[in-house]
């Protein structure tokens, strides 16, 4: 029998789907009494554009992102649990690569990512979820945004 799930990493893009996705990850972490690492990767190009427009220092930008992550966690109901949480904001052009590296560094037993609907030839779409599960080398739970919108209970967290 394998070892338990001790650390869950959830990658969020801080979109409208973030609280739903975090709720899924919280459900898993709670079920297995695991730690939860919440990771957001931002693109340096996007930040430079913001810097040009507003002159906001990167520390302040990262602070805003952390606040958004905390707000999303609160909306997802983290306050009702005793799940230990760590937040990580990572600057990287390669979003999937940064998620995979963080999962390896934190030795995550499970990576949770959201998936938005995509169109076109799959090989050309290159979604973050696809790239993560190709490269992670560890179990990846992909949660469709449509499932989150439906307000369904966490998939890996019933019958506790």
């Amino acid at each position: 029998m394998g070892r338990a799930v001790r650390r869950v990493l959830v990658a969020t893009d801080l979109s409208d789907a973030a609280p739903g996705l975090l709720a899924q990850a919280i459900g898993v972490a709670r079920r297995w009494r695991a730690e939860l690492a919440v990771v957001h990767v931002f693109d340096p190009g996007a930040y430079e554009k913001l810097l040009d427009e507003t002159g906001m220092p990167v520390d302040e930008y990262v602070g805003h992102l952390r606040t958004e992550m905390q707000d999303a966690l609160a909306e997802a109901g983290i306050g009702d649990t005793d799940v230990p949480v760590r937040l990580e904001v990572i600057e990287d052009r390669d979003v999937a690569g940064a998620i995979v590296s963080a999962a390896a560094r934190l030795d995550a037993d499970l990576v949770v990512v959201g998936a938005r609907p995509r169109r076109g030839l799959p090989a050309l779409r290159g979604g973050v979820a696809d790239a993560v599960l190709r490269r992670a080398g560890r179990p990846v739970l992909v949660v469709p945004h449509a499932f989150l919108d439906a307000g369904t209970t966490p998939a890996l967290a019933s019958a506790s």
Partner: protein
Amino acid sequence: MQRILVPVDLSATSEAVVGAAADLARALGAELRILHVYTPDDAADAQGERPDAHATFAGRLEDAVRALAGRVGVRADVEVCQGWSIPEQILQTARRWEATLIVMGTHGRRGWRRVLLGSVAEEVLRHAACPVLVIPPGAGRTSQLAGTAR
């Protein structure tokens, strides 16, 4: 009641995937169903080897899936069905059975078809209405997601 659907290609990695799904099902008190989809080509190839009737071919596959469940030591429903598109059959079964989670490996399609269309897992998670847990080769029940933490 959670319902976990495990599509398997009956390759060497299937045992680890079913093992992980079985551990999850036990931990969650979920129902488990193991599904194998074969294509009409698979059936035609097999009938070239032996003059089996179609029903016999499907029956042999069902026996193979049951044997797999037996090796893993899990009680599960077994389903075998035929279709040209493996991902489409998996998605249809998930909808019909109202699966709350699909657990699958990353293998399942070879050569140029994989390059052009992506893996079966990628196509399934692209269209699935429920979450999909993808277990890569080598991350089965011995090392990773194996839930009976008691």
